[in-house]
C-alpha cells in the first residue's frame, strides 16, 4: 500500500500485574482497593497490539499510529512515561474510569466516539488494533463492540501474526483450540485485529522517540476530555477474587522429572 495505514490502537491502563488486587464495595459499585495508589502499566494485551502496530507502520511507508486510551488522566500520564520511549504514536486520551468493572458497551461507545473524532483519519486505510483480552478483568469483548459501532466487518481475534502480502492483502494467524492457528486472508483495510501476544519483543527505550512523542502527548493529556460511562449501564451483585489463587515459588535448576513429580503430588493432594 503506497500511502500506508492509519493504525488506531485501543489500549488502557491497568494496575501493574505484580500488585495484589483486592475488590471492595463502594457507593458507586465495586472497585479495587487503593487502585490509585498502585503503579499502572499499559494493559499487556494492548501493549502487544501497540508494538505490532509500530512494527507494521515501520514497514509501510506513510503509515501513522494513534493510541486511543481511556483512563484516569494521572494514570495515563504515568504510563506514558514508560511506553512513549518505545514506539512512535500519537495519543488520543480520554479521561475516565478504566477499571474492569466498567461496562464494555459503555467503554466501546466512548472509544468509538474518540476514534471517529480523530482529525484526518482515513477509513479506507484504517486498521483497528487492540488486545484480544484485557488484564483489567474486562469481559474481553470491547474490541468487537468498537468494530460493530464503526461498521468494521472484517474482525480477527486472538491474532498472533499479521503479514502483508505483495497485493496489499493480509495473512492472519488467529489462535484456535489445541495450540494451533487458523490462517485467514483479508483483502485490506478497514479491518479489526484483537491481538494475542504476537511475536515481537518489547521494543527498547529510545530517548529520541520519547522526546518527540512527549511533545505532543503532554498537551494532548492536558486537553483530554473527561467522560463518565453511561449511568446504570451495568450493576454488579457482588465481586470477589478468584477462589483459585496463583501460588508462586521460584526454584531454579529443577529437572523436568522433579517438576513433574511435584505437580503430580500437588494434584493428588488437591
Amino acid at each position: 500500500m503506497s500511502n500506508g495505514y492509519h493504525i488506531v490502537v485501543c489500549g488502557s491502563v491497568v494496575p501493574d500485574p505484580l500488585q495484589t488486587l483486592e475488590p471492595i464495595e463502594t457507593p458507586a459499585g465495586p472497585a479495587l482497593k487503593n487502585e490509585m495508589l498502585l503503579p499502572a502499566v499499559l494493559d499487556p494485551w494492548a501493549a502487544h497490539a501497540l508494538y505490532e502496530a509500530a512494527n507494521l507502520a515501520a514497514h509501510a511507508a506513510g503509515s501513522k499510529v494513534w493510541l486511543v486510551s481511556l483512563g484516569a488522566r494521572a494514570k495515563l500520564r504515568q504510563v506514558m512515561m514508560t511506553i512513549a520511549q518505545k514506539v512512535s504514536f500519537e495519543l488520543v486520551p480520554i479521561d475516565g474510569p478504566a477499571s474492569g468493572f466498567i461496562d464494555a458497551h459503555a467503554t466501546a461507545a466512548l472509544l468509538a466516539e474518540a476514534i471517529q473524532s480523530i482529525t484526518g483519519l482515513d477509513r479506507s486505510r484504517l486498521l483497528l488494533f487492540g488486545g484480544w483480552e484485557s488484564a483489567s478483568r474486562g469481559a474481553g469483548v470491547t474490541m468487537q463492540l468498537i468494530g460493530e459501532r464503526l461498521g468494521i466487518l472484517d474482525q480477527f481475534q486472538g491474532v498472533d501474526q499479521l503479514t502483508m502480502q505483495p497485493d496489499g492483502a493480509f495473512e492472519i494467524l488467529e489462535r484456535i483450540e489445541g495450540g494451533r492457528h487458523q490462517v485467514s486472508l483479508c483483502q485490506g483495510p478497514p479491518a479489526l485485529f484483537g491481538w494475542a501476544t504476537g511475536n515481537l519483543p518489547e521494543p527498547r527505550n529510545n530517548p529520541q522517540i520519547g522526546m518527540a512523542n512527549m511533545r505532543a502527548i503532554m498537551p494532548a493529556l492536558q486537553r483530554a476530555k473527561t467522560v463518565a460511562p453511561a449511568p446504570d449501564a451495568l450493576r454488579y451483585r457482588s465481586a470477589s477474587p478468584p477462589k483459585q489463587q496463583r501460588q508462586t515459588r521460584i526454584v531454579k535448576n529443577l529437572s523436568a522429572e522433579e517438576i513433574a513429580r511435584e505437580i503430580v503430588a500437588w494434584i493428588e493432594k488437591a
Partner: protein
Amino acid sequence: MTPVGPEPAAPIDRQQMDVDIACVGFGPAMGGFLTTLSRSLLNPDGSPRLESSCLPGTPLQVICYERADGLGFGVSGAVTRGRGIRRSFPDLDLAQIPMATPVKQEKLVYLLDPTGASNRSFALRAADKLIRALGSLFRFREDALELPLIPSFLQKHDGFVMSLGQFNQWVGEQLTSSGMLQIWPGTPVSAPLIEDRAVKGIRLADQGAALDGTPQDGFLPGMDIRAALTVVGDGPVGAVGRGIDAHFGLPAGHEHSEWALGMKMVIELREDSGLETGTVLHTFGFPEPEIFGFLYVHPDRLASVGIFIPSWFRSPVRTAYRYLQHFVLHPYLWRHLQGGTLKSWGAKSLQESGRRGEPFLVGDGYARIGEGSGSTNVLSGSGVDEAWTTGAQLAEAVVQLLEKKLPFTRQNLEETYVRRRRASWVDSESRVAADSRNGFPHGLLSGLFGMALAGFTGGRVVIPPPSSRKKGASLEERFGARIPPAELQKLKDEAAERSLPLHDQIMSRCGWPEIPFDGKLLVSQQDALLTGGSVQAPPDYANHVAFLRPDVCRNCEPKLCVEMCSGQAITRGESGVPQFDREKCIFCGACLWNCRADEAGEPANIDFRAGAGGLHSALN
C-alpha cells in the same frame, strides 16, 4: 569524551542527543529541583521565559532519567518536618498525597530485649535490670520504656508522615502535567561524560546486552545525552555520582565511611490495632543495641515499620530481614501489629557520613543535590526534606544563571548554588550533626551520649572520631564467647557447602527464636521479595553487580556482601566467589559498602553499575 564507567572493549558508535539540562535520578532532591525550576520556565502569558540554547526558539529542554521502573518505587518510610517542602508548596494539602498525614503523637522508646539473645554489653544489661526492677516508677510496659522527653533536635511533631513512593509519584504528576519537563523512569544512566575536567552530559545504559555486558542481537548502545548542565541526584550508590567521585575525588578530609541499611515493611493493620493515624515511634535498643527502628502510622490503617542497620554494627551476621522480623515481634510493637498483613517491603542504603561525606558539590557542567551530595542529617535522622531543599536551591541558582546568560561553570555554580546552600538551615544543621555519631562505634551508651553532646552544644563539643572504621568483626571475635570454635567452624562449613549465608544458623544458635511464619505478615524473605517488593529484572541489560577480582572474594571471610544482601541476590557461589542473581536484587546497594577489600588496602572489589528493574511497589 570520556565516559566514567564500564565500557565494552571495542569502540561503539553511539547516538547523541542535546538538551539544556540533563538530570539523573528522580527522588526528593530532583523533585525539589524540577518543581522549583518548572515554575520559572514560562511567562504569565505562556511564552517561554527561559529559552533553550540547544534548540533555539523553544523553551528550555530539561530531561530527567530515573533508573527504577516507576517514579513511585523509591524506598523510605518518611517522617519529615517538611520545612523545605512546605516552602515549595505553601498551601500543601496533605490529603492530596496518598498515605500522607500530619504527625499527631511522637514517642521515643527504648526497647529491652525480651528474647535474651541480643548482644548487649554488661552496662546495658545492668541498665535493663534496673529498668525492669523499677519499672513501676517509669513508663515501662511490654519490655519497653517510653522516654518522657524527645531531644529537640530529633522532634518531628510539627511535620508529617508520608510514603516516599507516593510522594514522588505525586510530585511527578505535578511536574509532568505542565508538559514542560520530561521524566523517564526505567532508564538507567551508566556514567557521566567527562571532558577536560568538565561534565558534558551522561551516557544511558546499553540495551540488548548479555549479563556480562557483551552485545547481543539487537544491541542498542546507550545514547549520549549532552547537556550544558548535568544535575546529579542519583543517590548514594548511583553510577553517575560515584563516577564523578571516582574521577574528581572527594574534598580533603571527606570520606564515605558511614552507611546504614534501612529496611521496612508497609503493613495493613488490623481494625483494632490501637494505633492512631499520625503516630510516630522512634526506637532503639532492640533487636540489637546498635539497631534503630521506627513505626509511622499512615491513613487507611497502613503503617511503615522498619529498622536501620548501621555500618558500625560490626557483627558479620547482619541480616536486616530477620532482624526486622524480630523487631516486628517485639511485644511493645506486636500488640499492635499482630493480625496485620504485609503490603509492601523494601530496603535502601543511606549515606550517613553527612557533611563529612560531602563531595564536590559543583564543577564545570555539573551540580550535586540530595543524599549523594551529603545532605542527610544524621543527628535529626532526616534526609528527605534536606534533599528537597538542596534541589530547590540549585533550581533558584540555575534560573539566576540562565537569566543572566552565564555559563554553568564551577565558579558560577559556587557563587549561586553553593552560596545558597551554605547560608541555609540545611548547612548549619549539618555542621552540628557532622560528628554527632562518633560515639556509636564504642557502644550504644557512648553513642547516645555523643549525640546528646553534639545536639545540645550545637556541635561545639563532640566525641572524637574513631581511629578505625573496620566493617565487620570476625565470627570468632563476635561469637567466640557464645559458640565453641569447633561448632562455629561446623556452621561455617555447612553454610559454605550449601551456598547459604550464615546468619540464620548463627542467630538461631545464639538463642534468637525461630520466626513463627503466619503467611500474612511474617513470611519468608523470598515471599517478601515477591509479594511485598514485587521485584523485577528486565532482560536486555548487563548485570549491575560485578565481582571484579575473583581471588579477592575467594579469600574473603566472612563475606559481608552475602550476609548483608537485602534480597538474598548474592550467594556464596561455587569456589567461594559470590554469585549474583539480579532477579532478586532490589538495588539497595548494601553490597557496595560491605565489600571488605578496602580493609586490606585494596580498591573495592564490587562494582555496582547502572541497571534497570528492582522494586515494583509504590507504597514504600
